[in-house]
């Protein structure tokens, strides 16, 4: 039996501070858009979190790694609480260890940060399993269900739109209810420009980042349905289950997607039972890791729903999960750097880029992911 000997969590240090991204610095509709002082940039209100790198070490000389978001607010949960539940345990007992982390954090967890912490540990345990078995993680999750994973790209940049290898484009929608009818026209103009640029054969999706309400969503659906929009994503805040139920009653070929800010199978059960959501988008680093996403895939499958993990193409765990699940047909990918300034050196290795519109997980044992600590860190 292998035993866990230590659990460490640290903030990922980048050699240069990452350049501001269009996702943080341009007008994108969001829950804070109703306040003028926070309208222009999401970076004006978002938490200054670091990414967290979690290392679970064992007495067999194998260490596993996982990633989540939450910096100094998530590290103490892992190092002060979960470590004591993990050290001395067999990393293969992943079902029990997940359950114990969830139960022990119930008084302060259930959603949000505590589940971020579980997610990173869960990834690290799967990484250990893969390394111990000398297999890539997807082969432990059921193997390959598709030779290649098709990719769509999230971008508002017309130069990106021109890359027809990506089967679809997801637009980060600039305007919401606070911008009135003019905002609807502004949104439609962006979508129309995209449709004209990419032609009739590729998909368009709309990311609304919790910024809309039910009526605004219906008005937008009517306005964009003729433009062949495939789905409207996260139009409502995550707690507005009743709103998603209302959207489900509206007959339209435009699908409703959501789930990036939902956590655990119980949260996804709420979403599924609304009957209004047909595409579920858990983020593996936030929802509870690989183990929990696999359960959500099973639930979704029983309801005939698709699962498209949030930013799945940017995540080692996401790629292994996508590869292994039948009802996860493709992946999201986002260019996180400014194209004109070039790609900064990445300190996280082993997450392949898409090639010709398709992507695959690493075939190295485990998740295949490593952290190249930069000069000055440690």
């Amino acid at each position: 039996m292998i035993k866990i000997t230590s659990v460490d969590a640290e903030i990922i240090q980048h050699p240069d501070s990452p350049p501001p991204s269009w996702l943080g610095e341009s007008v994108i509709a969001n829950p804070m858009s109703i306040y003028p002082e926070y309208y222009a940039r999401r970076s004006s209100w978002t938490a200054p979190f670091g990414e967290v790198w979690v290392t679970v070490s064992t007495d067999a000389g194998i260490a596993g790694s996982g990633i989540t978001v939450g910096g100094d607010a998530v590290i103490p949960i892992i190092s002060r609480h979960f470590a004591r539940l993990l050290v001395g345990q067999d990393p293969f007992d992943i079902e029990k260890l997940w359950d114990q982390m969830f139960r022990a954090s119930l008084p302060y967890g259930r959603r949000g940060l505590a589940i971020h912490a579980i997610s990173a540990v869960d990834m690290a345990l799967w990484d250990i399993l893969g390394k111990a078995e000398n297999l890539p993680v997807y082969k432990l999750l059921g193997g390959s269900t598709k030779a290649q994973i098709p990719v769509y790209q999230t971008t508002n940049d017309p130069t990106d739109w021109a890359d027809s290898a990506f089967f679809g484009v997801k637009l980060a929608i600039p305007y919401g209810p606070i911008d009135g009818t003019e905002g609807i026209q502004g949104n439609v103009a962006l979508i129309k420009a995209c449709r004209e640029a990419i032609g009739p054969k590729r998909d368009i999706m709309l990311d609304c980042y919790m910024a809309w309400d039910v009526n605004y969503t219906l008005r937008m659906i009517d306005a964009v349905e003729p433009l062949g929009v495939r789905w409207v994503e996260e139009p409502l805040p995550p707690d507005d289950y009743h709103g998603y139920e209302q959207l489900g009653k509206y007959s339209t070929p435009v699908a409703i997607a959501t789930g990036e800010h939902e956590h655990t199978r119980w949260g996804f059960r709420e979403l599924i039972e609304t009957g209004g959501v047909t595409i579920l988008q858990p983020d593996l680093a936030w929802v509870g890791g690989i183990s929990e996403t696999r359960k959500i895939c099973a639930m979704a499958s029983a309801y005939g729903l698709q699962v498209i993990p949030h930013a799945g193409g940017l995540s080692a765990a996401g790629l292994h999960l996508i590869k292994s699940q039948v009802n996860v047909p493709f992946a999201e990918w986002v260019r996180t750097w400014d194209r004109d300034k070039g790609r900064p050196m990445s300190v996280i290795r082993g997450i392949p880029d898409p090639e010709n519109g398709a992507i695959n997980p690493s075939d190295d044992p485990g998740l295949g992911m490593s952290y190249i600590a930069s000069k000055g860190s440690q």
Partner: protein
Amino acid sequence: MHPDEIVAVRAYIVGEGGGDYHAQGQHHWIVQEIATPMSQYPPYQKTRTSWGINVLGTLVVEIETRSGVVGFGVSTGGPPAAWIVEQHLSRFLIGQRPWDVEKLWDQMFRATLFYGRKGLVMNAISAVDLALWDTLGRLRQEPVYAMIGGPVRDRLRFYATGPRPDLAQSMGFIGGKLPLRYGPASGDEGLRANVEEFRRMRERVGDDFWLMYDCWMALDLPYATRLADALSEYRPRWIEECFPPDDIWAYQSLVNHVNGQMLVSTGEHEATRWGFRLLLESHAADFIQPDVTWCGGLTELLKISALADTYGAWVIPHGSSVYSYHFVITRTNSPFAEFLMMHPEASEVVPMFSPLLINEPVPVNGELRLPETPGFGVELNRTLLRRVRWESGALENA
């Protein structure tokens, strides 16, 4: 520059005692064998500290205005919650007026949606919100209850939570709530012991004293229905928090099963109006028990209470001392309050947040008249406060 604008937001953590009820020595009843969601795992059955129930510790948030008025609020959350307050929430507070509670709450909630909604982040927001109300009371020289509608009765009545309802009866409380000792993993023997404990206590307190069981998320539906059936001849007033908070459907089934023979309650680990809406709408509980230091603070509790009122449901806040009392005294649908017996053997009335608060009032003969002291009417025992220095993670004295 307005004299009342907020100029500083400080977060502190505390060692033993305070807002984290479970930060107690091993001799205390509250950390000994009580059924929990972890009880099914033998290594974590005997004590609640074995799996880290006390791991986070208390959070204190202090808000200071330009004119030098300082108010504070309390929750559970320790270093991670302190980080959230100082590194994220503070930017929505600095330069603002403390009476903009509605906007400030909404901004804190919206800005944390992507990592919050329930749990730790709501604990942090709760402490900030309570600090805002305390500051506002000190600015206006009014008790908080006077700012949220005023008292609807002249005194509070209490039931006592702890292992000795018989002693609570002699101290003037209207009822006693026992912690359930054994969960499903202890089998039929544990079930019989749970029922026997309740029967024994019923015998001691007579027919008219309220007796309840607190099950702290430890049960599953088959066990809870058997327990409720077996207890019914000893007339429990209610059975509390049988299931983990996400198992709304189990609560619904239990409400249907007991069919009014006893009340079914929950909500201590639920947060926000949206969380309670799900409970109320699905009739998963006959009444709700939000904790004002966890559910989003007083601003949110008032909304939860308005919602509960339309369902005809009581709101009996979980623990939380003065922060609950100032609410309870102002609501007709909050007819009595909980008092957590924080004495190690539950044999004496001691302040709930001891030793963190100065002038913390306690019930006498099961009753309490609230003073007219501004804010929540309590001061901080500052010798207990520690700040977290983020660069090193080390703790320093306040």
